[in-house]
């Protein structure tokens, strides 16, 4: 089963959550990453996510498989949006179920950190001043283009 997916459509947390059901689970922790209206002191109007689809799904799957080995959890899942997003949109959802809350919190935190660190997805922010730029890990835009 694919537990890491890229999606161009709106993520529904209630639908995702059902995939974490397990009779032995006593805890469920989820993380939602939202599109915010500012970054690095600049007003953000909207953004685009681009992914290297095949490699991103493969790497995302590897992150979740590793989480299942590292933590005593019952299920883990992640969905990441690609394409254009508006302020307030849900950009990434991570969910984990476990017998106890400690492992669920830890695994959820670890998964979103690993996804941000190694899954080939890129964010292009469009700013209120007409500039735009792809973000890289130091948080600064390396490429800017006029009103676009």
């Amino acid at each position: 089963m694919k537990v890491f997916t890229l999606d161009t459509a709106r993520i529904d947390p209630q639908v995702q959550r059902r995939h974490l059901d397990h009779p032995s689970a006593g805890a469920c922790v989820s993380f939602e990453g939202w599109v915010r209206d500012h970054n690095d002191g600049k007003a953000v109007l909207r953004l685009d996510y681009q992914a290297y689809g095949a490699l991103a799904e493969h790497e995302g799957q590897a992150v979740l498989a590793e989480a299942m080995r590292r933590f005593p959890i019952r299920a883990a899942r992640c969905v990441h949006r690609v394409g254009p997003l508006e302020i307030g949109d849900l950009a990434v959802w991570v969910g984990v179920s476990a017998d106890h809350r400690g492992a669920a919190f830890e695994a959820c935190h670890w998964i979103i950190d690993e996804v941000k660190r190694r899954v080939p997805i890129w964010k292009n922010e469009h700013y209120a001043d007409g500039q735009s730029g792809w973000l890289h890990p130091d948080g600064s835009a390396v490429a800017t283009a006029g009103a676009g």
Partner: protein
Amino acid sequence: MNYRLLYFASLADAAGCAEESVASDTHDPRALYAELRARHGFVFDATRLRVAINGAFGGWNDTLADGDEIAFIPPVSGG
């Protein structure tokens, strides 16, 4: 050798395309990147990139085969 190059994010902006076919005398990703960096003006030093060959992460010194699909992966910013 002919390679299929995939570009993402700021590398695609710099190259002016998302993919291209390239004829090259280079045989590993390191030499190929140096050649393409000179051609397209990529700002990244290779140390900031990862390389993918035919849809899987690979090494900079791997030997490339004719027809390989190669992507240089700039620092990611998902989440």
